[in-house]
């Protein structure tokens, strides 16, 4: 199964999908039209789903495609359609020079901070050999078992509370978006 080219192939695909995610995220932020931006964001989410699969989180990858790319982005596009906002030229979208400079500075500070953090906080102990860590996740319980076990034992209360959260969100969305009769 594992031949000598596997690590090279893995690394190539990992960098490929990482690059796709990064480039389409940058394109997404710079688009004027909301529809184009939403479609580029869908591409980011597909690339991230591929990365999840490569990081041994196949179930999360499937959920990413189903929930994010399939459901949430469709809701965004539906709202764009409902409000008829497809024309990009209608509003001057990007903030003025002061806002852009402030955002650039904050962005640079954030990226420097996060990069420094990911360089320093990761000591050598974290860099396990890839095969060993993959075996931990794969195990014998298959793909969904290791995710389901803590979800339905240790985090059962949180899991039940998310159902209440979803109910509240449904009711809130209906109440907010409903046309006032008066």
């Amino acid at each position, binding site marked *: 199964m594992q031949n000598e080219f596997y690590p090279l192939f893995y*690394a190539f695909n990992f960098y490929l999908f*990482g690059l796709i995610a990064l480039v389409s*995220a*940058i394109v*997404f*932020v710079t*688009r004027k039209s909301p529809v184009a*931006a939403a479609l580029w*964001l869908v591409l*980011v989410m597909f690339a*991230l789903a591929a*990365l999840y699969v490569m*990081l*041994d*989180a196949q*179930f*999360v990858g499937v959920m990413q495609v189903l*929930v*994010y790319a399939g459901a*949430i982005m469709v*809701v*965004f596009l539906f*709202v*764009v359609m409902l409000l008829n*906002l497809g024309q990009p030229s209608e*509003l001057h*979208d*990007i903030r003025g020079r002061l806002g*852009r400079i402030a*955002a650039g500075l*904050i*962005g640079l500070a*954030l990226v420097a901070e*996060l*990069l420094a*953090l*990911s360089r320093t906080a*990761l000591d050598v102990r*974290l*860099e396990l050999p*890839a095969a060993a860590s*993959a075996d*931990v*996740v794969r195990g014998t319980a298959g793909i969904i078992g*290791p*995710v389901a*076990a*803590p*979800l339905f034992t*240790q*985090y059962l209360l949180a899991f039940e509370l*998310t159902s209440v*959260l979803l109910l*509240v*969100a449904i009711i*809130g*969305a*209906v109440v*907010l*978006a409903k046309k006032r009769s008066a």
Partner: protein
Amino acid sequence: MLAESLTLSAALFTIGVVGVLTRRNAIIVFMCVELMLNAVNLSFVALSRLYGATGQVFVIFVMTVAAAEAAVGLAIIISIFRHTKSVNLQDINLLRG
């Protein structure tokens, strides 16, 4: 691949923050928030390779909250659009003194 994943996660999060700060279209600002949630999910998944599958459980929770947030937030945007006929954040200034 852990360091690369965390770096990509940081970069995506920063792109999301810059988008929230620079765009005026409320829907695009909202999508930037989704991008930030995705970036956090990526670091959860990358670290779950080392610390067991609990990270993936948290990713599922984050997705649930993101779905709820998208539903309520877009309903708020629709409601604001009915009121002001615009989704430009510059036009939504009722609280400005």
